[in-house]
Structures are given as structure tokens and as C-alpha cells.
């Protein structure tokens, strides 16, 4: 018998936080990664809530949208 296939639907994801799609892509990627890993520096856990672009180190962008509700992510 062939293996059962574990399939998942792509549905466009959640509403973007930033209108710039390339910026939003970085934010969304970081957000999704930080829901799965805890970054560390040496042995010390580091909590991250924003990022800067290397070409524009003066501007900080937030990673997490405010007031996330449990059902927001899938509805």
C-alpha cells in the first residue's frame, strides 16, 4: 500500500501588517519562525519583537501585530 499523503491547503494567509509586500514578507517569515523557535545568544534566550533592514538601520519594524486573538490566525 502506498503511503497516505499528508496534504495541506494554502489559502493566502492572514491580513498583511505592512503594505510594502517585501517588508511584509520578512515580517511574516520572522513571525512564523518565532512561533516555533526561541533565539538564543550563547546560552541566553533572546526575546525579539522587531527588526531593521541593513540598508536602513534607523527604522525598526514590529514583528507582531497587536492584540492577536486565538481565532484571528485561521478565520
Amino acid at each position, binding site marked *: *500500500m502506498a*503511503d*497516505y499523503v499528508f*496534504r495541506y491547503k494554502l489559502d*493566502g494567509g492572514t491580513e498583511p501588517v505592512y503594505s510594502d*509586500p517585501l517588508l*511584509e514578507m520578512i515580517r511574516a517569515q520572522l513571525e512564523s519562525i518565532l512561533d516555533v523557535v526561541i533565539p538564543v545568544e550563547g546560552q541566553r534566550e533572546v526575546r525579539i519583537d522587531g527588526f531593521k533592514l541593513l540598508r536602513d538601520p534607523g527604522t525598526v519594524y514590529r514583528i507582531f501585530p497587536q492584540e492577536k*486573538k486565538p481565532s484571528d*490566525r485561521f*478565520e
Partner: protein
Amino acid sequence: MHQPIVEFTRRQLHSLLSVVDLEKDGKVVQVDGFRLRKPEERPNAAVDRSQGGESGGVSRSASSFQSIRNASLYEPRIELIKRQLESLLRVVQLESGGEAIEVDGFRLRNLKDWLSPSPCDPTEIFGYAGTRCNCDCVFCCNKGNPATLALGKLVRPVSEEFAEMMTRLDHFFPKPGYCLFPTLGDIYEVMIHPRFFEVLESTRERSAKTFRITTNGECLTRETISRLEKLKPVYLYLSLNSASPSRRASLMKSRDPQTAIDSLPLLREAGIPYSLVIVPWPVDSVEEMLDDLVDTVAYADRNLASLVQVNLAGYSRYFSQEKLYDLDEVWSAVVSAVRGLRETTASPIVVMPSMYEENTYESRKNAPRVVGVVRNSPAARSGLMRGDEIVKVGSVVISSRPQARGLLSVLQGSEIGRASLTVERAGERVEVTLNVEDFSYPYSPATDHHLGVIFMGTGLRLSYLESLRGLVNSRDAKHVLFLSSTLVKPTFEQLLAESHLFGDVRVDIGVPRNSFFGGNIFMGDLLVVQDFIDFIKEYVKGGGDRPDLVVIPSTPFSLGGWGRDLTGRVYLDIEREVGIPVELLQCSTIFD
């Protein structure tokens, strides 16, 4: 920004496509390139969902879509892949042979990549048979699950369910302890699945472990029991609820109540031990419920039930918006009845959650007191009795229930053969000797724990306080808010008061409300991220000093091991929203 982004995207796609295949309309599509989308080509976030939900919209050749919500609970790296792909697809157009292609899903490429450490309990295979039910219990907790719960169920053909179970079995490796990540949702009745025994027989070829089967008993005919007998060791959690055919029919909408009722002597004949499960529900009146409880326990006792498990029922706001009964009135009446029944019943009786009884009746919590012994177990044959408090196992002085349980488990699995126990009985010290080899039905070392000693639940390990101290030290905290539950708080407070570990630290204990589930639910393990956030915000707003650390027991987040609550939301969101460091205290559920 474009060149670095193109390279970033290329690397991302390359890594993603090494673990998943992309698909469109149920067929795998080959991707060999991409280009950045022009602004007018960018899709909206809310893409066309008209092609069906998570379990719909597939071609005939493909299996149904699995639930992403469920994956977020058990294997969030799948959700990570989904979110990464979706964020990429907003900015790039995938191509194959220079032509633009669209995708609407993905599939796991090599299932061996997705093995995870596991105790490899056989339920991890046959549990997937429990997708339907032949009863409709008035108290069924599955009816109280909101749609946003990660434990929803997929509606799929039987053949697909069977294919998944057999694929899981192919990836089931008990010796090294690996199997495929779970996707279990609500579990209904496993025994009505048309291919249940086929799965069970194949599983037995891979595992000698006890099959622990929860069943409503509707299928427990002589023939079925005979098939189970061939697959021993088997232990049943038989949800009989009532030994009265009319009451069982009324409580469970059972079409054939007699089959389950008649199964008890047949199970005994077949040498299959079982725990008889009763959910007292005040149908008609509390008095009728209690009368029936007495009769049902007596019936279980006559038929040598290994254990009688009385589950105190609650209901969420999704189950009923109206108050159905007074919880304290019903629960305390049931517990009081059970305590009376223990006087006259040889089969041990436990009430779940046991901490309700402990909080009501025991001035000293966490004590290693015996509430019953399994018939014909080494404990029963040693003369150990209900009410005994274990003070020593061999020469080891016992100070808590988890310690006693742990040592008895070790003894049961050891080669020692005999062990002496010192107990306190009616104010006197008594020594008994347990012979590990001295037992008969319904006890079996394959299906029982603690040599047949039954306690009032698991208790709280003293080591949790040491772990808590470790968390406090790691954060250099001086003021800790520990979030507990109504049931656990009294025991935790007692342990804290007896401990010398926190003299320099202020530890406040808070009990969040189960607002997500609502109704009369007040279980810590059913709290979700939003309940914790709401409580902490209220606590800080209410004028209390702002704590510098919040500690939460890990059990509301431990189902899949990835720190998700029952909605699939990660506990890290609590810290992100309240701005106070949050740590999980690793611990086990208080349910056995």
C-alpha cells in the same frame, strides 16, 4: 532591495521544496523557477477559499487535506511551512519550464523526515479509528468544543482513515521510540470503525504493549470480546455509565444498552481487565442519579471491575448557554456517595478530577494515602487496606504521594520480587510484604501500575518547587505571579508554605478564569493563551504590583510538546502581549 530579496526567496524556496511538494488541484506540480510579481499581480491575503475548506476541494486521486489548525498544535513546523509559502507567494510568481504556475496546497515529501520521539503507545495508531460514534451521550464533552479548537475532526472516507493508520504503523518504531507526529482530534468510538480489528491485529505485530481501548461497549459482543482476547494484553475503559438498560439508553441514546451491560461477565471470562467508567449526570433528579450510581458500582463490583472511575462532568458555554445544574451540589453529592460506596465495595473507586475530593475532605494534601486496592493484586494480597497511609517503602521514608507512586512503579517493574511497606493504620504502624508475583485477574502487571495500589490522583511532585526556583533564579525574579487552577491551588499553597526555597521571593498565586470554554469549566489544563493574557492584564490593572516573572504550569500547553494551547496558539504570545517575562514550569497533568 530587490537583489537580496531575490536571493532570499531562492534560498527559502529551495529549502521549503526539499521537504514538501507543491500541488494544484490535488496533483503535484514541478517548480523550477520564479519571478517577482508586479504590483497588479499580487494576490490579496484573503485568497479564493471557494474551493473548499481544510477537508474539502480535492481531486479524486488525492487524500483529503489535513487540518492546519490541528498541525499547529502537534507539528507547528507544518504551519510554519504554510505561512512561509504564503508570504513568498504574495511576492513571487512560481514557474515551471518558463510558464507561470499556480499552487493551492502542499504535501509532505518524505514522511521519515517527520518522525518524532514518542513512547509509541498503540493508541497512537488505532486512536485514529475513533472518528464516529454510535451513541449520543447527553454529557458528551465533544459537543462542547468550539470550532476554533485545534482538536477538530476531519470528515473522510473510511478507506482514507485506514490508509493513514497503516501509514502510521509503517512509521511506528517502538524500539528506538519514534513515530509520525500525531494529528488526533476529538476521539469518539474506535470499535465501530469497519477496519478496527485489521488495524489492531497489524499493530500487535509491531508492539507487545497493552492496548488501552476506550469504548462505550455497544460493540462488546461475545464474538468481539473473543477477538480482543486473542490480542491481549488489552485493557478497556468501558463507559457503561449505568447498569440499568433504560437509564443507559436515556443517558447515551444507546440503541442496544444490554450488549454493554452484558459484556462485564464476558470480559471477566476472557480475562480482559477493565475500568468501568461512570459519568454521573443529573437526569431526572440528583437522587435518581445517585441511586443509579450505587446500583452501577455494585454491578461493576460483582463483575470484578479492576477499577471504577467516576468522572465528574462539566460543560462549556458551547455545550449549553444555560445553567444545566449546580456544579457544587452535584459534584459534592457524587463524591459523598462514592466515599460511602468505598466502605462496601471491593473494587477500588476513584473520582476524577480527584483533587476535588482531596480539597473537600483532606486537610493534608498530597498524602500517600491508599483509597483502594485492585482485587487480587500484590497490594490486595499483602493485606494493604483502604485508608492506609504509606510511610515507608523498604527503608525509604515517604513524604508525598508522587514519591510513593514512583517507588511502587519501580518495584513493579523490578526483579526484586518482594518488598516491605510500612503503613500507618488507625494511628498504628503496620508492616506488610508485597509479593510482586502474587496476583490474579483482574490485576495484571501489564495493565496496572503501583502493584495495585490506588491513590487519590497523582499529587504534586516536590521537585516542581525546585524547578520553579530554577526559573526564578534564571530570571533573577523577586516577585513571581504563579498561575494555577482552583483544583491545584490548595496543594500548591501547602507545598509552598512547607518549602524553604522562596524566603527571598514573593510568590503570588493567581487563578485565571476559563473564559474561552466558559460554562462551568474550571480546569487549569483547559485554559488558553487568551485566558492567561486577560488575567495578567486584570491583575496588573487591579493595582497589584507588577510581577517581574509570570510562571505557568506547562500542562495547558503540553499536548503536542510545542507550547501550544488547545487553539494552537503559542504560549509566547502571553509575554508578547503583557510585556512581562513568562516561563512554563514543566509538569505532568494531574489526571492519571
